């Protein structure tokens, strides 16, 4: 690998049979110390949004009451993302340990993993590992038990408040925010909900210390990230890399020599065309990503790519708010009409305006982020939308 694309072996590395040794050490540490370590490490959430993890935990810790929850978001539905599946397959104990640390810090006794229905085949293995964890926790006097809840094929349930609704037996419709989950989450109790990978990062910070962890990545994007690489690449798969690398170097490493565009962050992320590879940094200072990197070469029609995304959003929109429910449909119909010649080219500007309106008026991240891929594809590949 080149000097810019640095392989790391933090998440998947060092998985000993000596179970939960870091957790055993950490249960006696003061909560404020743990929070401070996570804060110093600069860790930001690995699900895509990148909220500082230490702050989230601190908010939940400061909430009164002893009924609090820790939830591990394993509803990995973003197109092009499959790293959480790999983490849960390879190193599940690291995830549970991260959750247990969170439980200790915020004062929760119960943790849930919300696993997407598509990953049901992982369930038997995970249940066995959870049994091991729960027994171990009891022996160690850790008052924090873990359970699994299954999703049933709804992308929107990866949105944290929709996930709570789903766990509460309701339709997966996002709630208004505020209140945020740390104040009122699952069953309206203070809840920390983090991505699978975030919990593993916390454990690793506790294990190697924030100073060593901080050496990875850049100022705005500390640590490593598990990337899901797919599309037109000879080496599709899962790679743990340092954050903050230029997209150009990434493409040199993973592309097939004819890369036209990279969709960073899945269908709800940004499409970066070849001419911008050089100036684009993968990380919170550039284009953030939950790990999804979809590579397209010159043989691909970006119209088809966008159409596929819009079909996806149209189906997965929960239908609760008008901007998203109607907006997704109209964007899809709009590009079809331009392609067929029923609408003039200038109609594209109107569609971009519509997507911008969705960005400011949709209730949750789904509707708000349709504009990301829509305007980045339409503005960079205008000819392909028309001809």
């Amino acid at each position, binding site marked *: 690998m080149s000097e810019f694309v640095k392989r790391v072996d933090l998440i998947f590395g060092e998985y000993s049979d000596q179970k939960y040794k870091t957790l055993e050490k950490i249960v006696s540490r003061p909560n404020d110390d743990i929070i401070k370590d996570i804060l110093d490490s600069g860790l930001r959430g690995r699900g895509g949004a990148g909220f500082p993890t230490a702050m989230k935990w601190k908010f939940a810790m400061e909430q009164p009451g002893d009924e609090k929850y820790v939830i591990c978001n394993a509803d990995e539905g973003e*197109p092009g993302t499959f790293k959480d599946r790999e983490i849960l397959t390879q190193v599940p104990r690291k995830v549970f340990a991260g959750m247990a640390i969170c439980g200790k810090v915020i004062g929760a006794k119960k943790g849930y993993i919300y696993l997407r229905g598509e990953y049901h*085949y992982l369930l038997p293995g995970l249940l066995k590992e959870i049994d091991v964890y729960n027994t171990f926790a009891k022996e160690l006097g850790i008052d924090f038990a873990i359970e699994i809840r299954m999703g*049933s*094929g709804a992308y929107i349930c990866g949105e944290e408040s929709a996930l709570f609704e789903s766990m509460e*037996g*309701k339709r997966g*419709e996002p709630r208004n925010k505020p209140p945020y989950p740390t104040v009122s989450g699952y069953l309206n109790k203070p809840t920390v909900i983090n991505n699978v990978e975030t919990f593993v990062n916390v454990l690793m910070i506790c294990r190697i210390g924030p100073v060593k962890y901080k050496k990875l990545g850049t100022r705005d994007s500390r640590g490593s990230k598990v990337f899901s690489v*797919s*599309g037109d690449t000879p080496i599709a798969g899962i790679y743990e890399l340092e954050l903050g690398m230029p997209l150009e170097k990434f493409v040199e490493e993973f592309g097939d020599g004819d890369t036209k565009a990279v969709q960073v962050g899945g269908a709800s992320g940004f499409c970066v065309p070849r001419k911008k590879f050089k100036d684009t940094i993968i990380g919170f200072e550039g284009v953030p990503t939950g790990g999804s990197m979809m590579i397209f070469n010159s043989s691909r029609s970006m119209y*088809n790519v966008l159409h596929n995304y819009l079909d996806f959003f149209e189906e997965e929109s929960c239908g609760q708010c008008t901007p998203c429910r109607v907006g997704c449909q109209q964007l899809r119909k709009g590009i079809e009409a331009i392609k067929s010649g029923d609408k003039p080219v200038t109609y594209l500007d109107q569609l971009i305006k519509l997507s911008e309106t969705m960005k400011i008026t949709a209730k949750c991240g789904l509707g708000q982020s349709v504009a990301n891929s829509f305007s980045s594809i339409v503005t960079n590949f205008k000819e392909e939308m028309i001809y």
Partner: protein
Amino acid sequence: MPANNNLIKELVNKYGRDRTSLMPILQGVVEQNNFISDMDMTEIAKELDLSAAQVFGTATFYSFLDTIPRGRFVIRVCKTIICDMHGKKMILQTLENLLKIKVGETTQDKKFTLLETNCLGWCHKGPSMLINHDVYSELTAETVHEIIAEYMHK
């Protein structure tokens, strides 16, 4: 169709009567019967002290909670971009020819239902599909033939 009262009672005893048990109960019914009937929903509502509309609302929201009869083996082919680029259409055609049904239909012997679904999380090994809970990836026309032949005998 009468409700599966025994199954529902069993599930309610296992998961409890709280609304938080609704998803596991609905999932349990689909697991056993491949779909949830209207009568099932009414019965679940009674057991959980909810309105039938609340149960219906939840059940119909989720794409894996089928509310119309499905075959014993539900095939869900991933149609999201990367699988689509890597030959999803051909896979779907192969399945349609083999099973002699179109997407959305169930074979007459009620053995197979063919559906499309959104990203399965196997983009690096697309095209991919689920048959009930099992994943099949890096599909070709040949492997699809083999897989279906295997299921024909189940």
